[in-house]
């Protein structure tokens, strides 16, 4: 779709620059490491290093083999990589390792792009923000949906007043349970939680950008009926209800509710209602549909949001400006998840 009202401030600038950069990928644990490595390796003026401490799931391509497949120079461990003084790192480790790796990287003077969720506790997130501040480096949170044209167009329309006063928001981020690729996603010791931690933050980030305010009160319920057969120790279904200080009410379905038989990974939708207009976006809807020998076929297409996000990060690294989405919004959106986890425990809404 076209952007009707021009670019907004979160769009990456396209000022050409030739300052060479070294970027390290810390761990290939997250499946997004594959996309990031491929994009960075193809970016002129960027040298890509990678290290992958493990552990690895049996049958997965990790470590040096992964690096070789993606055109990344493999380094034996994190300390060795950081000793090479990279300009920046991209952290794709298990969620519970984000803080430690961020503290090591920032202490080495590297700017950080951290995979979402930023951390698994509010204390860890605060420590990461403090570490980046102390070192004078960038901390950015990997929320690629921010860079979808459907979303930047929505923001532009809201800023231009086309929707009037926003009063109600409905978001969904549903997909398959991410067990097939990486077992750590469903191991709370390494992931910090299930569907709540995995899927609430993307939508929460979009709402944060749209409203410019943090959440005030959060209610959540979860269950484990979906994929009960997999025997995982985390919630697989969840519904989160949020109230914002301006009175806006929002609901997010974060369930891993798409069965393995579905033809694609899942999707994200955001529906915004204002007194003068309503907009619903479905940034991953674009696809060619059909059938193959296994049934339904889904060939998705559209702009590479990871590439746009990495472009924003590299530009910020080169120019020294603060990129968006930054670490602060990573912490604010994580706070919604931790409040949701407390609400599930308490059986009542929780005030932030």
């Amino acid at each position, binding site marked *: 779709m076209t952007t009707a009202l021009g670019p907004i401030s979160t769009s990456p600038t396209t000022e050409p620059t030739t300052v060479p950069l070294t970027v390290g990928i810390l761990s290939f644990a997250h499946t997004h490491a594959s996309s990031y490595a491929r994009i960075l390796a193809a970016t002129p003026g960027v040298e890509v290093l990678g290290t992958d401490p493990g552990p690895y799931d049996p049958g997965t391509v990790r470590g040096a083999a992964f690096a070789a497949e993606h055109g990344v120079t493999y380094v034996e461990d994190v300390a060795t990589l950081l000793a090479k003084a990279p300009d920046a790192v991209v952290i794709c480790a298990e969620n519970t390792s984000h803080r430690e790796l961020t503290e090591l990287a920032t202490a080495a003077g590297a700017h950080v792009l951290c995979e979402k969720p930023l951390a698994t506790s509010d204390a860890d997130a605060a420590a990461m923000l403090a570490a980046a501040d102390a070192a004078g480096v960038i901390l950015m949170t990997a929320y690629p949906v921010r860079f979808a044209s459907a979303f930047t167009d929505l923001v532009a329309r809201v800023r231009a007043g086309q929707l009037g006063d926003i009063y109600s928001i409905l978001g969904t981020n549903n997909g398959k349970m991410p067990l097939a690729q990486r077992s750590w996603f469903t191991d709370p010791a390494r992931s910090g939680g299930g569907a709540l931690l995995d899927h609430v933050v993307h939508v929460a980030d979009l709402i944060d950008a749209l409203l410019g305010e943090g959440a005030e009160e959060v209610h959540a319920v979860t*269950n484990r009926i979906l994929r009960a057969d997999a025997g995982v120790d985390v919630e697989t279904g969840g519904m989160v209800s949020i109230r914002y200080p301006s009175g806006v009410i929002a609901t997010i379905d974060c369930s891993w509710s798409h069965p393995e038989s579905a033809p694609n990974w899942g999707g994200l939708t955001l529906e915004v209602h204002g007194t003068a207009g*309503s907009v619903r976006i479905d940034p991953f809807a674009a696809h060619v549909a059909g059938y193959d020998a296994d049934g339904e076929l889904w060939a998705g297409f559209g702009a590479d949001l990871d590439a746009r996000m990495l472009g924003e990060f590299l530009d910020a690294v080169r120019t020294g400006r603060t990129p968006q989405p930054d670490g602060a919004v990573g912490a604010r959106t994580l706070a919604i998840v931790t409040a949701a986890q407390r609400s599930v425990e308490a059986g009542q809404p929780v005030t932030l």
Partner: protein
Amino acid sequence: MSAPRVGLIGAGGISGVHAAGWRALGADVVVHSEHGAQALADRFGFRTADTLADLWPQVDLVDIVTPTATHAELALAAIAAGRHVVCEKPLARTSVEAAAVVEAAESAGVRLFPAHVVRYFPEYAAARAAIRGGRIGTVAVARFRRMSAAPKADWFFDEARSGGIVLDQMIHDLDQAEWLAGPVARVFARSTAKAGDGGRVASAAVTLTHTSGAISQVYGVWGHPGLPFTSSFEIAGDAGLLRYDMARTDSARIHLAGPATAGGYLPATDPSDSPYAAELADFWAAISTSAEASVRGVDGVRAVAIAEAVLASAASGEVVELPLEPTEPSTEGSLP
């Protein structure tokens, strides 16, 4: 089955689709309404009655399509006159009133049908059949969504008279949530209303926890005048997923030159296969053959009770526990 003799009480927004449904059954219809009775009667070739006392002797059953706060009183009067009752949802403004209507109908030996028409919309009936057929396994997470331009009549926004968006619009999906995912144990709700340039708007967002452990989200919007009617649902089970979105399942796309069409308050339905006609036909068949319909009086009480829990949670900001459904869940009935 003989043609019904029907007293249509009320001539407002929903009366037109009910009138069309009765006409399709070949009913002999007499309209009684404070306002608009003659115009409605003229449009459909019906007669009018100036008073309820004049109406009773002319009809076998009444169809109450008046503002919510008047439902119970009119239903009780009809029952006292020995007439069967079809009553637009909600059955009454409060569950206490609704229960009194059910009790009165049982004592008097007349039939009572709250018009939960969404049970007769084919997409919801198809979802129920798929769930009951085991197509998606055990229901885990469900979403129900319904929105339209806000209604224009003042009483819709008067909480005391209508119960607002929750009792008027969302009650459809509260009923669907139990119909499709079983009894609700617990409710958390938020609601909001705002005055905009184009009129008032309102929204409510509800999380239901079912006794089975399933979670439902029910979301409603009465929006700006340009918001078209849409409803959608997505129901995920441990073996599959059902999805329907009226806005994405259009069997015709029409774009005419000229001013853009505004939103509407009622869904577009196939006039030759109207869910409103289907529900009235089911009610009349149930009366004629002494069978059950797809909606029973107690279902209407239950829907109001859940809606009251939603209002209570939205007002208090706390989770509200619901008493278990006091009666057996709906039997298979005669699904349309």
